[in-house]
């Protein structure tokens, strides 16, 4: 992994430098298109209302399935 890729704060400007977040932002155009497609897909699914089609709302769906949603520390 990139050694420099830890979040840092510029003491002069207060701005946070985080190489991973910067890399995500550099892919913003492609990611935005992907997120838009994902949102459209969720709107078509029966369990999701159009009011709840964001990535966070989609993840909430996984709360129905504990072995799935608790991705950070979960049983396999």
């Amino acid at each position: 992994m990139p050694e420099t890729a830890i979040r840092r704060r510029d003491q002069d400007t207060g701005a946070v430098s985080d190489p991973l977040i910067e890399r995500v932002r550099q892919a913003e155009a492609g990611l935005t298109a992907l997120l838009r497609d994902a949102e459209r897909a969720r709107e078509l699914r029966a369990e999701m209302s159009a009011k709840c089609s964001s990535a966070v709302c989609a993840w909430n769906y996984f709360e129905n399935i504990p072995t799935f949603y608790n991705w950070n520390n979960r049983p396999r």
Partner: protein
Amino acid sequence: MVTRERRVVPGMRGIASVPTYVVMQPTTLCNLNCTYCYLPFRSQQRRMSVRVAAAVAEAVNTWAAERRFSVVWHGGEPLAIGRRHLAELLAPFSSDVEHHVQTNATLIDDAWCEFFAEHRIRVSVSVDGPRERNAYRVDRGGKLSYDRVMAGIAALRRHEIPFSVLCVVSRPEPELAAELYAYFLELGCEVLGINIEEREGVNQRGNAHPEAAVVGFWRELVAAWRRDPRIHVREIEWTLRYVAAVLDDTVDDLLPAQLDPIPTIGYDGSVVLLSPELAGFTDPRYGDFTSGNVLETPLPELLAEPERTPWISEFLAGVEACRATCPYFGFCGGAHAANRYFEHGRFDGTVTDHCRNSKIRLLEGVLEHARDGDPSA
């Protein structure tokens, strides 16, 4: 001159005293003998007593009265205990509690489907893709389990019981992704979770893979999903949640404030926190990894001071080490306890091969897909 200080990713500080679910091991027995399985004692029928279930239910019913709460019947193969005994174990739990079962599906028939419906049990099935991808899922005679799994899934479909799938991928390669996704679309599962095989428990097979192969696997899985996104894919949804939070500038709210203790209750009432994969193991340094037994101490009391269990305080130091050193911490939340132990032999190491395969390269695969543009266009 510009000097910079490290900014700390918030979240995952310590362990919550109330879990969101518990894992129950109704029996150690499994009727299969999958070659990658981490479970010890899976050839032995050690059954959970109703006394253990009642002790767990006492705490769980209180939590479930206040908020959504689930019990996951894991294993061994939980259905191997039989409907009658499983019904006895379910009985102490209030109707507020949601029940889930993770099963190999080989025992599912019409009677089990009626049981699932009667007890409102949600079902997740373990299957690794088309027949030829299930070579490791065998019984004790070495016979493939695939036909029996398909018979079980056919019963679920006949009864219109929705199901999720957990799929173990032993050799992640780009060309496998589209094949797997097409298979699971056809199978009709609602949700798919991909577990890259892990080195843990009694499974000591290595899990180091070439970086390009694993990144390519995730990249191609995203591409396949995007062409027909009818299934929820756990890993893709989580990654989209992360990148959406980055782009919305809300990434600091992403990780939970504290780790979920996820108590696993062994057949005998022993409690292992955080990683069910540690249940049943002992180590000269860490003992049996348990934090007590529900037959001797109420579960809330066992969860009150988790750091009293020596390996857990070492694990929490490991989480802080991940936070301090790993650029992916904000996405991942730290390496899992069992992966640290079974890969490093201790809990305060940081990056594992599981992190590489299932977290780091997942995110990189999604980014690669995004950078390359929409391949379906």
